[in-house]
């Protein structure tokens, strides 16, 4: 499952819900807002996403991961709206029978999502400047 959340991720019903009984390994990845980025002090940042498109793309990535790794469940929550340093921006849970596919798939999925999900962030700096990240 995948969701874009305008509230803190740990308030979502899918956050940290009980594992499947068949799960022997669960890897959780949490991405947070960094205080410093490329030598600049971040005061806040703003995420926006294209929800339907992001949902479809997440499902594609998970289908691809399921073909490569023996997985039981993948869940991902991504924040939108204004966040400050230390806030959780993304939370992902990957469940498998064994640890090896869970670790490998977690890395694979997060790298694919970072490149493919239609989500954008704009950083605001302490010096008053701001800008879209990755924008040329």
């Amino acid at each position, binding site marked *: 499952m995948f969701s874009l959340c305008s509230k803190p991720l740990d308030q979502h019903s899918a956050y940290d819900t009980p594992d499947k009984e068949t799960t022997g390994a669960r890897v959780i990845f949490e991405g947070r807002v960094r205080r410093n980025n490329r030598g600049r002090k971040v005061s806040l940042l703003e995420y926006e996403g294209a929800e339907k*498109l992001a949902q479809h793309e997440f499902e594609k990535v998970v289908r691809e991961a399921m073909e490569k790794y023996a997985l039981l469940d993948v869940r991902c929550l991504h924040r939108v709206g204004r966040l400050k340093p230390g806030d959780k921006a*993304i939370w992902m849970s990957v469940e498998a029978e064994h640890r090896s596919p869970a670790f490998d798939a977690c890395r694979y999925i*997060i790298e694919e999502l970072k490149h493919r999900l239609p*989500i*954008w962030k704009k950083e605001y700096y302490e010096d008053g400047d701001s800008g*879209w*990240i990755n924008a*040329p």
Partner: protein
Amino acid sequence: MIRLEVTYYALLRDMRGLSSERMETEAHTPAELYRALCEEHDLRLPAKAVKVSVNHEFQTWDTPLKDGDEVGFLPPVSGG
């Protein structure tokens, strides 16, 4: 002429000054449409840096457009 709804995201929304608009166009593909919009509104982001969606699915630039389609233009992403 076909009628479309066009959505701009992030940097492109800032450049266009609005997030979506309905329009009539003679463009047959997203490539033709984007070229026309860049000229009309001075969007300074080359098509090679942009992705396109039609009816909430990623599509190629030469996908034929039809009346009622929802077209999205998406700048480089930065999630996670």
